[in-house]
């Protein structure tokens, strides 16, 4: 038996109170943070929270289930518009929140039911239409959306007796809602649904042969992604208090996707990094030279895909692996919609390829 005087590092970390200490510390920091930071910092963090949720949603369908989607920003916009409309008509805020979640989810369900049928890259090809159709649609339905002018809605004012400033109150709400969404999603992807998603992502035919219907799980993943997108739209209205057709342009759609990949596809923490990237980096590049922003973003996305496919979140892992094994393994390029894929991309000389199968 182990002698009492030797306690290895691993056994210390396994003690329950140590495992709880980390998250507990995090909660304490998050609770205190809004009170000590400046208004600008709080607003920035709140915006990061909004987009972290949006990226998380995208991760569910793209990072975890491997389906490229260019439509996530549409669901954010949809949720924001629902929120704006509800608030402008003085609906109960809980009802507004529920609708902001459900309406985009229903839309996502419909889109997925059609697109997932096609297999292959159909979801990518169809979702590209969502922002492109969404913008003129938002302009057209001006009775609901305020047309090109957009809609404002202020509804997150700090309650009288709390002694909080608006920005602090808003950040708390964002942290709570985002926290819940992240927690629920984390449980989802670590549970049996997450495993099913991963199998569908890896090889659809293997999934079918295991009784896991790729179609059903793609639809499920996409619907969840849209729902989470709706939540992020609600938070968007809460923090930014204004939405317009500009919210869901094709350019933003690509930026969101890029943020997801750069932050880390298929990763909870990566989603947060993605949100941070989405909010902070354009601010930086705009200061350098606004016309360079798109170029830098494209270059950065490509750089990540080539050099660090797992995104920023995989940087620590990549660095330690690099130190342990100085010679990089050949054919170990991990595709970025997965940090660890079963369908690796080997070089042509290595793999026994027979006639290439068709991709739909």
């Amino acid at each position, binding site marked *: 038996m182990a002698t009492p005087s030797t306690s290895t590092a691993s056994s210390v970390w396994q003690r329950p109170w140590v495992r709880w200490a980390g998250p507990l510390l995090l909660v304490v920091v998050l609770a205190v943070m809004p009170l000590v930071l400046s208004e600008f910092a709080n607003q920035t963090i709140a915006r990061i929270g909004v987009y972290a949720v949006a990226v998380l949603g995208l991760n569910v369908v793209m990072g975890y289930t*491997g*389906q*490229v989607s*260019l439509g996530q920003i549409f669901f954010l916009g949809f949720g924001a518009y629902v929120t704006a409309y509800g608030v402008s008509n003085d609906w109960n805020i809980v009802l507004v929140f529920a609708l902001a979640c459900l309406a985009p989810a229903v839309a996502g369900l419909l889109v997925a039911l*059609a697109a997932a*049928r*096609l297999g*292959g*890259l159909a979801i*990518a*090809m*169809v979702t*590209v*239409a969502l922002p*492109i*159709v969404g913008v*003129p*649609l938002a*302009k*057209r339905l001006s009775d609901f959306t305020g047309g090109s002018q957009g809609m404002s809605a202020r509804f997150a004012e700090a309650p009288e007796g709390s002694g909080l400033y608006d920005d602090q109150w808003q950040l708390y709400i964002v942290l709570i809602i985002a926290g819940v969404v992240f927690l629920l999603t984390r449980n989802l992807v670590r549970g049996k649904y997450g495993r099913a998603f991963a199998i569908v992502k890896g090889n659809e*035919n*293997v999934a079918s*042969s295991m009784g896991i219907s790729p179609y059903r799980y793609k639809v499920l993943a996409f619907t969840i992604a849209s729902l989470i997108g709706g939540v992020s739209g609600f938070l968007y209205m809460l923090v930014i208090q204004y939405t317009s057709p500009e919210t869901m342009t*094709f*350019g933003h759609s*690509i930026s969101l*996707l*890029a943020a997801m*990949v750069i932050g880390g596809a298929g990763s909870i923490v990566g989603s947060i990094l993605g949100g941070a990237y989405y909010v902070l980096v354009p601010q930086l590049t705009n200061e350098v030279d606004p*016309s*360079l922003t*798109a*170029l*830098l*973003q*494209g*270059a950065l*996305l*490509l750089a990540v*895909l*080539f050099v660090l*496919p797992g995104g920023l979140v995989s940087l620590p892992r990549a660095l330690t692996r690099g130190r342990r094994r100085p010679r990089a393994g050949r054919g170990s*390029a991990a*595709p*970025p*919609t997965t940090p660890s*894929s079963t*369908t690796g*991309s*080997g070089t*042509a000389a290595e*793999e026994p*390829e*027979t*006639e*290439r*199968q*068709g*991709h*739909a």
Partner: protein
Amino acid sequence: MGKFVQLVVDGLSTGSVYGAIALAIVLVNQATGLINFAQGGMAVLSTYVAWWLTTHDVPLILAILVSILFSLALGAVVERWLMRRFERGDPDTAVVVTIGLLTLITGICGWLFTYNNQQFPSLFSLDTVSFLGVSISIRSIGTTVVIVVAMLLLQGLFVGTKLGLALRAVAINPQSAAFSGLPVGRLLMVGWGLAAALGAVAGALVAPQLTLTPGMLDSTLVYALAAVILGGLTSPIGVVVAAWIIGILENLAAVYVPFIGFDLKVAVPFILIFVVLIVRPQGLFGRKVVVRV
């Protein structure tokens, strides 16, 4: 009646542009198994090259020819240096790479040529010609004819030349083709170059109408993808026909269906897809693709 014919002719013209991009996408897909979301962006970059030359007093036709040469090189370089790593891997990953490429190219265009609308000279006169009492735009006819000719030339290359045979062989089974000595890598570069060239032609033809901006073909990409879905990835003729149908129907819908109007025209292809998909998941012309585990 006159209006109807005009709309059909104009629809054929825009449909040809969609079809050119869609065909380029199919070409690239058959050779390398991935969907190039940057196909339109590459065409725009080539069109900017042509435009830049025209601002330096190069005659339009020459400028366009140079831009076609540029696009051949661009396609080859993109395949060799960017996409090759991702060709045999997960197609979803490859798509994300092409999205990155699209962003980069858009950024390059914006940085080099600004985001302002630039006027691109029209190859065809803006007059109309009267045919059976209906006035038809010369530009629409010209655009359609040029693109159809380009497609036919491409088809002739594929079916009638040794290079074309080699390209087809590589698309079907690259390793088996290599066993017969075909230089697979080089042929893939040629394939991508030809696809880019087709896009360049389309870009130069449609730029006068859309005005040249870095994002000029973003919507066109959407239409092209819709044509690919409807026509099926395995059928080049299918996607071209689908593109024409989309072009014509959206024009008709814009005028005859008040709810849709001009601003929501872009929804038409997707309504079409929704309807067709329910009946025929593999598209109008495509074959069911069998993937072995």
